[in-house]
Protein backbone atom coordinates (compact mmCIF):
# COMPACT_ATOMS: atom_id res chain seq x y z
CA UNK A 1 0.00 0.00 0.00
CA UNK A 2 2.66 2.50 1.10
CA UNK A 3 4.97 1.40 -1.67
CA UNK A 4 2.38 1.80 -4.42
CA UNK A 5 1.48 5.27 -3.13
CA UNK A 6 5.18 6.18 -3.14
CA UNK A 7 5.53 4.82 -6.69
CA UNK A 8 2.48 6.82 -7.78
CA UNK A 9 4.04 9.96 -6.27
CA UNK A 10 7.36 9.30 -8.04
CA UNK A 11 5.58 8.71 -11.37
CA UNK A 12 3.41 11.79 -11.01
CA UNK A 13 6.29 14.12 -10.06
CA UNK A 14 8.35 12.57 -12.86
CA UNK A 15 5.71 13.71 -15.32
CA UNK A 16 6.07 17.36 -14.24
CA UNK A 17 9.85 17.08 -14.45
CA UNK A 18 10.79 16.50 -10.82
CA UNK A 19 13.06 13.58 -10.01
CA UNK A 20 12.17 11.90 -6.73
CA UNK A 21 13.36 8.44 -7.82
CA UNK A 22 15.81 8.13 -4.94
CA UNK A 23 12.86 7.66 -2.57
CA UNK A 24 12.36 4.17 -3.98
CA UNK A 25 16.04 3.30 -3.55
CA UNK A 26 16.86 1.95 -0.11
CA UNK A 27 20.12 3.54 1.02
CA UNK A 28 19.69 7.17 -0.10
CA UNK A 29 16.09 7.34 1.07
CA UNK A 30 17.22 6.00 4.41
CA UNK A 31 19.94 8.66 4.82
CA UNK A 32 17.50 11.36 3.82
CA UNK A 33 14.82 10.22 6.25
CA UNK A 34 17.53 10.00 8.91
CA UNK A 35 18.36 13.65 8.19
CA UNK A 36 14.79 14.73 8.90
CA UNK A 37 14.72 12.73 12.11
CA UNK A 38 18.06 14.18 13.26
CA UNK A 39 16.82 17.73 12.61
CA UNK A 40 13.58 17.06 14.52
CA UNK A 41 15.56 15.44 17.33
CA UNK A 42 17.87 18.47 17.51
CA UNK A 43 14.89 20.82 17.69
CA UNK A 44 13.07 18.79 20.37
CA UNK A 45 16.27 18.58 22.43
CA UNK A 46 17.31 22.22 21.95
CA UNK A 47 14.02 23.87 22.93
CA UNK A 48 14.08 22.77 26.60
CA UNK A 49 17.88 23.18 26.83
CA UNK A 50 17.76 26.76 25.52
CA UNK A 51 14.81 27.69 27.75
CA UNK A 52 16.45 26.25 30.89
CA UNK A 53 19.73 28.08 30.29
CA UNK A 54 17.82 31.20 29.23
CA UNK A 55 16.07 31.29 32.61
CA UNK A 56 19.36 30.72 34.41
CA UNK A 57 21.09 33.52 32.46
CA UNK A 58 18.15 35.87 33.03
CA UNK A 59 18.30 35.21 36.77
CA UNK A 60 22.04 35.93 36.76
CA UNK A 61 21.57 39.00 34.55
CA UNK A 62 19.14 40.63 36.98
CA UNK A 63 21.30 39.84 39.99
CA UNK A 64 22.39 42.87 42.00
CA UNK A 65 25.94 41.48 42.19
CA UNK A 66 27.99 42.77 39.29
CA UNK A 67 30.33 39.80 39.52
CA UNK A 68 27.37 37.61 38.55
CA UNK A 69 25.69 39.86 36.00
CA UNK A 70 28.68 41.29 34.09
CA UNK A 71 30.04 37.96 32.72
CA UNK A 72 26.55 36.96 31.51
CA UNK A 73 26.10 40.39 29.89
CA UNK A 74 29.46 39.98 28.12
CA UNK A 75 28.53 36.45 27.00
CA UNK A 76 25.20 37.69 25.61
CA UNK A 77 26.82 40.53 23.68
CA UNK A 78 29.48 38.25 22.23
CA UNK A 79 27.05 35.51 21.12
CA UNK A 80 24.59 38.00 19.70
CA UNK A 81 27.18 39.92 17.68
CA UNK A 82 29.22 37.08 16.20
CA UNK A 83 28.00 34.48 13.66
CA UNK A 84 26.81 31.19 15.15
CA UNK A 85 28.81 29.31 12.54
CA UNK A 86 32.03 30.98 13.74
CA UNK A 87 31.15 30.09 17.33
CA UNK A 88 30.54 26.51 16.27
CA UNK A 89 33.82 26.24 14.35
CA UNK A 90 35.68 27.82 17.24
CA UNK A 91 34.14 25.40 19.74
CA UNK A 92 34.65 22.36 17.57
CA UNK A 93 38.14 23.10 16.29
CA UNK A 94 39.60 24.80 19.35
CA UNK A 95 37.72 23.80 22.51
CA UNK A 96 37.21 20.24 21.31
CA UNK A 97 40.93 19.90 20.50
CA UNK A 98 41.84 21.27 23.91
CA UNK A 99 39.50 18.76 25.58
CA UNK A 100 41.08 15.98 23.51
CA UNK A 101 44.58 17.10 24.51
CA UNK A 102 43.67 17.16 28.18
CA UNK A 103 42.12 13.68 28.00
CA UNK A 104 45.08 12.34 26.04
CA UNK A 105 43.95 11.86 22.45
CA UNK A 106 40.79 12.18 20.39
CA UNK A 107 39.82 8.56 21.04
CA UNK A 108 39.21 9.36 24.73
CA UNK A 109 37.09 12.43 23.93
CA UNK A 110 33.43 11.66 24.63
CA UNK A 111 32.20 14.92 23.04
CA UNK A 112 30.68 14.34 19.61
CA UNK A 113 29.92 16.94 16.88
CA UNK A 114 26.27 16.47 17.86
CA UNK A 115 27.12 17.59 21.41
CA UNK A 116 28.83 20.73 20.11
CA UNK A 117 25.86 21.70 17.96
CA UNK A 118 23.53 21.33 20.96
CA UNK A 119 25.93 23.27 23.20
CA UNK A 120 26.62 26.15 20.80
CA UNK A 121 23.11 26.62 19.40
CA UNK A 122 21.52 25.99 22.82
CA UNK A 123 23.66 28.59 24.61
CA UNK A 124 23.35 31.06 21.72
CA UNK A 125 19.55 30.94 21.82
CA UNK A 126 19.64 30.89 25.64
CA UNK A 127 21.45 34.24 25.50
CA UNK A 128 18.69 35.65 23.29
CA UNK A 129 16.04 34.20 25.65
CA UNK A 130 17.80 35.76 28.64
CA UNK A 131 17.57 39.25 27.16
CA UNK A 132 13.89 38.76 26.32
CA UNK A 133 13.14 37.53 29.85
CA UNK A 134 15.13 40.41 31.35
CA UNK A 135 12.99 42.86 29.39
CA UNK A 136 9.94 41.00 30.76
CA UNK A 137 11.25 41.25 34.33
CA UNK A 138 11.79 44.98 33.88
CA UNK A 139 8.18 45.26 32.75
CA UNK A 140 6.94 43.91 36.11
CA UNK A 141 5.49 46.88 38.05
CA UNK A 142 7.74 48.11 40.85
CA UNK A 143 4.78 48.16 43.28
CA UNK A 144 4.15 44.44 42.82
CA UNK A 145 7.75 43.68 43.76
CA UNK A 146 7.57 46.06 46.72
CA UNK A 147 4.39 44.40 47.93
CA UNK A 148 6.06 40.99 47.73
CA UNK A 149 9.04 42.32 49.65
CA UNK A 150 6.71 43.76 52.28
CA UNK A 151 5.10 40.34 52.90
CA UNK A 152 8.58 39.07 53.61
CA UNK A 153 9.55 37.27 50.38
CA UNK A 154 13.30 36.89 49.86
CA UNK A 155 14.96 38.09 46.64
CA UNK A 156 14.91 34.54 45.26
CA UNK A 157 11.30 33.94 46.25
CA UNK A 158 10.24 37.18 44.57
CA UNK A 159 11.96 36.03 41.41
CA UNK A 160 10.43 32.56 41.61
CA UNK A 161 6.84 33.39 42.59
CA UNK A 162 6.24 36.97 41.46
CA UNK A 163 8.62 38.22 38.79
CA UNK A 164 9.21 35.07 36.73
CA UNK A 165 5.53 34.15 36.12
CA UNK A 166 4.70 37.69 35.03
CA UNK A 167 7.94 38.14 33.08
CA UNK A 168 7.48 34.89 31.14
CA UNK A 169 4.06 36.06 29.97
CA UNK A 170 5.43 39.42 28.85
CA UNK A 171 8.35 37.87 27.00
CA UNK A 172 6.49 35.00 25.30
CA UNK A 173 6.27 36.64 21.84
CA UNK A 174 10.03 37.29 21.86
CA UNK A 175 10.70 33.73 23.09
CA UNK A 176 8.67 32.25 20.23
CA UNK A 177 10.67 34.38 17.78
CA UNK A 178 13.88 33.01 19.29
CA UNK A 179 12.60 29.45 18.98
CA UNK A 180 11.91 29.97 15.27
CA UNK A 181 15.46 31.26 15.01
CA UNK A 182 16.59 28.10 16.84
CA UNK A 183 14.88 25.84 14.32
CA UNK A 184 16.75 27.60 11.52
CA UNK A 185 20.07 27.52 13.38
CA UNK A 186 20.09 23.71 13.56
CA UNK A 187 21.33 23.70 9.94
CA UNK A 188 24.79 24.93 11.00
CA UNK A 189 25.43 21.37 12.18
CA UNK A 190 26.11 20.73 8.50
CA UNK A 191 29.50 22.44 8.90
CA UNK A 192 30.83 19.81 11.31
CA UNK A 193 29.21 16.81 9.64
CA UNK A 194 26.24 16.30 11.93
CA UNK A 195 23.92 14.43 9.63
CA UNK A 196 20.93 16.79 9.83
CA UNK A 197 18.69 17.46 6.86
CA UNK A 198 20.99 19.71 4.77
CA UNK A 199 23.93 17.36 5.27
CA UNK A 200 21.83 14.33 4.34
CA UNK A 201 20.48 16.17 1.30
CA UNK A 202 23.99 16.94 0.04
CA UNK A 203 24.66 13.19 0.19
CA UNK A 204 21.66 12.57 -2.06
CA UNK A 205 22.03 15.39 -4.54
CA UNK A 206 25.71 14.79 -5.23
CA UNK A 207 24.58 11.35 -6.48
CA UNK A 208 21.34 12.27 -8.22
CA UNK A 209 21.78 15.92 -9.19
CA UNK A 210 18.26 16.76 -7.99
CA UNK A 211 18.88 19.88 -5.91
CA UNK A 212 15.61 21.61 -6.87
CA UNK A 213 13.48 18.64 -5.79
CA UNK A 214 15.16 18.33 -2.39
CA UNK A 215 15.10 22.10 -1.83
CA UNK A 216 11.32 22.21 -2.32
CA UNK A 217 10.85 19.57 0.38
CA UNK A 218 13.34 21.20 2.77
CA UNK A 219 11.72 24.63 2.44
CA UNK A 220 8.26 23.17 3.04
CA UNK A 221 9.61 21.14 5.97
CA UNK A 222 11.03 24.21 7.72
CA UNK A 223 7.91 26.26 6.95
CA UNK A 224 5.73 23.55 8.51
CA UNK A 225 7.87 23.25 11.64
CA UNK A 226 8.04 26.99 12.16
CA UNK A 227 4.32 27.32 11.57
CA UNK A 228 3.79 24.67 14.25
CA UNK A 229 6.17 26.44 16.67
CA UNK A 230 4.42 29.77 16.07
CA UNK A 231 0.96 28.18 16.53
CA UNK A 232 1.93 26.41 19.76
CA UNK A 233 3.50 29.64 21.03
CA UNK A 234 0.32 31.52 20.22
CA UNK A 235 -1.76 28.87 22.00
CA UNK A 236 0.43 29.06 25.14
CA UNK A 237 0.22 32.85 25.03
CA UNK A 238 -3.57 32.67 25.01
CA UNK A 239 -3.70 30.08 27.81
CA UNK A 240 -1.41 32.12 30.05
CA UNK A 241 -2.83 35.54 29.22
CA UNK A 242 -3.42 37.70 32.31
CA UNK A 243 -7.06 38.85 32.28
CA UNK A 244 -7.41 42.56 31.75
CA UNK A 245 -4.19 43.04 29.77
CA UNK A 246 -3.64 43.32 26.04
CA UNK A 247 -6.34 43.18 23.40
CA UNK A 248 -7.97 40.06 24.90
CA UNK A 249 -8.96 36.82 23.26
Amino acid at each position, binding site marked *: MGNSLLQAFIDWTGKIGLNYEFLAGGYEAQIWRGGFITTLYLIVLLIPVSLAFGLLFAAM*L*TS*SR*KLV*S*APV*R*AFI*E*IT*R*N*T*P*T*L*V*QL*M*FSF*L*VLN*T*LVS*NVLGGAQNNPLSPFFWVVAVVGLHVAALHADAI*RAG*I*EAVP*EQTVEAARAIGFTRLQILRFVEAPLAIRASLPALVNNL*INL*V*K*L*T*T*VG*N*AIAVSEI*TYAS*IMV*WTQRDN*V*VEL*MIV*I*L*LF*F*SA*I*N*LAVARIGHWVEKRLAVPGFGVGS
Partner: protein
Amino acid sequence: MTNAKILSASAHNRLPWLFGALIVIAAIWLLADLSLLSTLIEWLPYLGSGFLMNILISLLAMTGGTLVGVILGILQLAPLKIVRYPVVFYVQVFRNAPHLVLIFATTYIFPFEIVVAGHYLPFPDWLKAVIGLAIPASAYVAEITRGAIQSIATTQWEAAKGLGFSRLQALRWIILPQCARRSLPPWMNLFASITMGTALASLVGVHELLHAATDASTAVRRLDFTVLAYIVVMTAFFVLCYPISSLTRRLERRLKV
Protein backbone atom coordinates in the same frame (compact mmCIF):
# COMPACT_ATOMS: atom_id res chain seq x y z
CA MET B 1 13.98 54.27 36.58
CA THR B 2 13.88 50.90 38.31
CA ASN B 3 16.82 49.24 39.96
CA ALA B 4 17.11 46.67 37.21
CA LYS B 5 17.24 49.33 34.53
CA ILE B 6 20.08 51.19 36.25
CA LEU B 7 21.92 47.89 36.64
CA SER B 8 21.59 46.88 33.02
CA ALA B 9 22.63 50.35 31.88
CA SER B 10 25.79 50.17 33.99
CA ALA B 11 26.51 46.68 32.67
CA HIS B 12 26.32 48.15 29.18
CA ASN B 13 28.79 50.87 30.00
CA ARG B 14 31.19 48.30 31.40
CA LEU B 15 31.25 46.26 28.23
CA PRO B 16 33.84 48.30 26.30
CA TRP B 17 36.11 47.93 29.35
CA LEU B 18 35.68 44.21 29.39
CA PHE B 19 36.42 44.09 25.70
CA GLY B 20 39.43 46.36 26.14
CA ALA B 21 40.75 44.02 28.82
CA LEU B 22 40.46 41.09 26.39
CA ILE B 23 42.43 43.01 23.76
CA VAL B 24 45.15 43.80 26.33
CA ILE B 25 45.37 40.10 27.29
CA ALA B 26 45.65 39.16 23.60
CA ALA B 27 48.35 41.81 23.08
CA ILE B 28 50.39 40.50 26.02
CA TRP B 29 50.03 36.95 24.72
CA LEU B 30 51.26 38.04 21.29
CA LEU B 31 54.23 39.96 22.69
CA ALA B 32 55.18 36.98 24.85
CA ASP B 33 55.43 34.81 21.74
CA LEU B 34 56.93 36.87 18.91
CA SER B 35 56.84 34.05 16.35
CA LEU B 36 53.08 33.90 16.81
CA LEU B 37 52.86 37.67 16.30
CA SER B 38 54.88 37.56 13.08
CA THR B 39 52.79 34.66 11.73
CA LEU B 40 49.63 36.60 12.47
CA ILE B 41 50.96 39.75 10.77
CA GLU B 42 51.90 37.64 7.77
CA TRP B 43 48.34 36.32 7.46
CA LEU B 44 46.44 39.51 8.34
CA PRO B 45 46.17 40.81 4.72
CA TYR B 46 44.70 37.44 3.68
CA LEU B 47 42.15 37.56 6.50
CA GLY B 48 41.42 41.21 5.65
CA SER B 49 40.63 40.38 2.03
CA GLY B 50 38.17 37.77 3.30
CA PHE B 51 36.49 40.27 5.57
CA LEU B 52 36.04 42.74 2.70
CA MET B 53 34.09 39.98 0.94
CA ASN B 54 31.78 39.65 3.98
CA ILE B 55 31.13 43.38 3.93
CA LEU B 56 30.54 43.41 0.17
CA ILE B 57 28.10 40.48 0.34
CA SER B 58 26.14 41.98 3.22
CA LEU B 59 25.89 45.44 1.61
CA LEU B 60 24.71 44.05 -1.74
CA ALA B 61 22.30 41.57 -0.13
CA MET B 62 20.77 44.30 2.05
CA THR B 63 20.43 46.71 -0.87
CA GLY B 64 18.70 44.13 -3.06
CA GLY B 65 16.65 42.74 -0.18
CA THR B 66 15.44 46.19 0.84
CA LEU B 67 14.41 47.25 -2.67
CA VAL B 68 12.48 44.04 -3.32
CA GLY B 69 11.20 43.78 0.27
CA VAL B 70 9.58 47.23 0.37
CA ILE B 71 7.66 46.44 -2.83
CA LEU B 72 6.62 43.02 -1.47
CA GLY B 73 5.55 44.62 1.82
CA ILE B 74 3.27 47.02 -0.06
CA LEU B 75 1.91 44.20 -2.24
CA GLN B 76 1.11 42.18 0.91
CA LEU B 77 -1.52 44.81 1.67
CA ALA B 78 -2.86 44.97 -1.90
CA PRO B 79 -6.66 44.85 -2.16
CA LEU B 80 -6.54 42.11 -4.83
CA LYS B 81 -6.31 38.56 -3.45
CA ILE B 82 -4.56 37.30 -6.57
CA VAL B 83 -1.69 39.74 -5.91
CA ARG B 84 -1.70 39.35 -2.13
CA TYR B 85 -1.71 35.57 -1.69
CA PRO B 86 1.42 34.68 -3.68
CA VAL B 87 3.36 37.44 -1.93
CA VAL B 88 2.19 36.29 1.52
CA PHE B 89 3.23 32.73 0.61
CA TYR B 90 6.68 33.91 -0.55
CA VAL B 91 7.21 35.87 2.65
CA GLN B 92 6.08 32.99 4.88
CA VAL B 93 8.29 30.40 3.18
CA PHE B 94 11.46 32.47 2.97
CA ARG B 95 11.15 34.07 6.38
CA ASN B 96 11.02 30.62 7.92
CA ALA B 97 13.79 29.11 5.79
CA PRO B 98 17.30 28.78 7.26
CA HIS B 99 19.77 31.12 5.56
CA LEU B 100 22.14 28.24 4.96
CA VAL B 101 19.50 26.32 3.02
CA LEU B 102 18.87 29.33 0.76
CA ILE B 103 22.60 29.80 0.14
CA PHE B 104 22.85 26.11 -0.81
CA ALA B 105 19.81 26.48 -3.06
CA THR B 106 21.14 29.46 -5.02
CA THR B 107 24.66 28.03 -5.24
CA TYR B 108 23.65 24.63 -6.57
CA ILE B 109 20.63 25.57 -8.69
CA PHE B 110 21.99 28.58 -10.59
CA PRO B 111 24.40 27.88 -13.47
CA PHE B 112 28.05 28.91 -13.15
CA GLU B 113 27.74 31.23 -16.13
CA ILE B 114 24.92 32.98 -17.90
CA VAL B 115 24.55 33.85 -21.56
CA VAL B 116 23.58 37.45 -22.26
CA ALA B 117 23.28 38.28 -25.98
CA GLY B 118 25.86 35.69 -27.00
CA HIS B 119 28.38 36.64 -24.29
CA TYR B 120 29.24 34.19 -21.54
CA LEU B 121 29.21 36.05 -18.27
CA PRO B 122 30.62 34.24 -15.22
CA PHE B 123 28.20 33.84 -12.33
CA PRO B 124 30.56 33.52 -9.36
CA ASP B 125 29.67 31.82 -6.08
CA TRP B 126 29.88 35.00 -4.04
CA LEU B 127 27.19 36.60 -6.21
CA LYS B 128 25.00 33.54 -5.66
CA ALA B 129 25.55 33.93 -1.92
CA VAL B 130 24.41 37.56 -2.26
CA ILE B 131 21.16 36.36 -3.83
CA GLY B 132 20.85 33.58 -1.25
CA LEU B 133 20.94 36.17 1.53
CA ALA B 134 18.92 38.82 -0.35
CA ILE B 135 15.94 36.43 -0.55
CA PRO B 136 15.42 36.08 3.24
CA ALA B 137 16.32 39.78 3.64
CA SER B 138 13.53 40.70 1.22
CA ALA B 139 11.05 38.54 3.14
CA TYR B 140 11.99 40.18 6.46
CA VAL B 141 11.89 43.69 4.95
CA ALA B 142 8.44 42.87 3.55
CA GLU B 143 7.22 42.00 7.04
CA ILE B 144 8.86 45.10 8.54
CA THR B 145 7.25 47.30 5.88
CA ARG B 146 3.84 45.67 6.30
CA GLY B 147 4.04 46.11 10.09
CA ALA B 148 5.04 49.76 9.72
CA ILE B 149 2.25 50.52 7.23
CA GLN B 150 -0.31 48.85 9.47
CA SER B 151 0.91 50.78 12.51
CA ILE B 152 -0.11 54.05 10.88
CA ALA B 153 -3.56 55.29 11.82
CA THR B 154 -6.32 54.60 9.30
CA THR B 155 -7.48 58.20 9.67
CA GLN B 156 -4.34 59.30 7.81
CA TRP B 157 -5.41 57.29 4.76
CA GLU B 158 -8.85 58.85 5.01
CA ALA B 159 -7.44 62.36 5.40
CA ALA B 160 -5.23 61.83 2.35
CA LYS B 161 -8.23 60.60 0.38
CA GLY B 162 -10.13 63.68 1.52
CA LEU B 163 -7.33 65.90 0.19
CA GLY B 164 -7.65 64.21 -3.19
CA PHE B 165 -4.66 61.86 -3.08
CA SER B 166 -5.01 58.54 -4.88
CA ARG B 167 -4.16 55.34 -2.94
CA LEU B 168 -0.68 55.18 -4.47
CA GLN B 169 -0.02 58.88 -3.96
CA ALA B 170 -1.08 58.64 -0.30
CA LEU B 171 1.26 55.67 0.13
CA ARG B 172 4.18 57.43 -1.54
CA TRP B 173 3.88 60.91 -0.01
CA ILE B 174 2.18 60.39 3.35
CA ILE B 175 2.43 56.82 4.63
CA LEU B 176 5.88 55.59 3.52
CA PRO B 177 7.88 58.56 4.86
CA GLN B 178 6.47 57.84 8.33
CA CYS B 179 7.19 54.12 7.91
CA ALA B 180 10.88 54.74 7.19
CA ARG B 181 11.44 56.05 10.71
CA ARG B 182 9.51 53.28 12.42
CA SER B 183 11.15 50.49 10.49
CA LEU B 184 14.71 51.74 10.93
CA PRO B 185 15.48 49.83 14.19
CA PRO B 186 14.25 46.42 12.94
CA TRP B 187 15.97 47.06 9.61
CA MET B 188 19.28 47.60 11.38
CA ASN B 189 18.77 44.41 13.40
CA LEU B 190 18.27 42.61 10.12
CA PHE B 191 21.42 44.23 8.72
CA ALA B 192 23.46 42.86 11.63
CA SER B 193 21.89 39.44 11.22
CA ILE B 194 22.54 39.30 7.46
CA THR B 195 26.13 40.46 8.04
CA MET B 196 26.63 37.50 10.38
CA GLY B 197 24.90 35.27 7.84
CA THR B 198 27.67 36.02 5.33
CA ALA B 199 29.90 33.63 7.30
CA LEU B 200 27.69 30.80 5.98
CA ALA B 201 29.03 31.48 2.49
CA SER B 202 32.27 29.82 3.61
CA LEU B 203 30.41 26.48 3.46
CA VAL B 204 29.91 26.82 -0.30
CA GLY B 205 33.52 27.81 -0.85
CA VAL B 206 33.27 31.59 -1.06
CA HIS B 207 36.53 33.20 0.03
CA GLU B 208 35.36 35.17 3.05
CA LEU B 209 36.71 35.67 6.57
CA LEU B 210 35.82 32.30 8.11
CA HIS B 211 37.08 30.50 5.01
CA ALA B 212 40.30 32.52 5.12
CA ALA B 213 40.78 31.68 8.81
CA THR B 214 40.28 27.97 8.12
CA ASP B 215 42.79 28.18 5.23
CA ALA B 216 45.30 30.00 7.41
CA SER B 217 45.02 27.57 10.30
CA THR B 218 45.42 24.53 8.01
CA ALA B 219 48.49 26.14 6.41
CA VAL B 220 50.19 27.11 9.68
CA ARG B 221 49.27 23.99 11.68
CA ARG B 222 49.73 25.43 15.17
CA LEU B 223 47.01 25.15 17.78
CA ASP B 224 47.81 28.55 19.31
CA PHE B 225 47.61 30.18 15.88
CA THR B 226 44.26 28.47 15.21
CA VAL B 227 42.92 29.84 18.49
CA LEU B 228 44.19 33.29 17.56
CA ALA B 229 42.79 33.16 14.00
CA TYR B 230 39.30 32.36 15.27
CA ILE B 231 39.57 35.08 17.92
CA VAL B 232 40.43 37.51 15.11
CA VAL B 233 37.34 36.32 13.18
CA MET B 234 35.10 36.75 16.23
CA THR B 235 36.57 40.19 16.95
CA ALA B 236 36.11 41.36 13.36
CA PHE B 237 32.42 40.41 13.34
CA PHE B 238 31.95 41.82 16.82
CA VAL B 239 33.53 45.16 15.92
CA LEU B 240 31.26 45.36 12.86
CA CYS B 241 28.01 44.25 14.50
CA TYR B 242 28.21 45.61 18.05
CA PRO B 243 27.99 49.29 17.04
CA ILE B 244 24.98 48.46 14.82
CA SER B 245 23.13 46.65 17.60
CA SER B 246 23.89 49.22 20.30
CA LEU B 247 22.86 52.05 17.97
CA THR B 248 19.65 50.12 17.22
CA ARG B 249 18.89 49.86 20.94
CA ARG B 250 19.46 53.59 21.40
CA LEU B 251 17.23 54.41 18.42
CA GLU B 252 14.51 52.08 19.72
CA ARG B 253 14.55 53.84 23.09
CA ARG B 254 14.35 57.25 21.46
CA LEU B 255 11.56 56.36 19.01
CA LYS B 256 9.53 54.58 21.70
CA VAL B 257 8.01 57.71 23.27
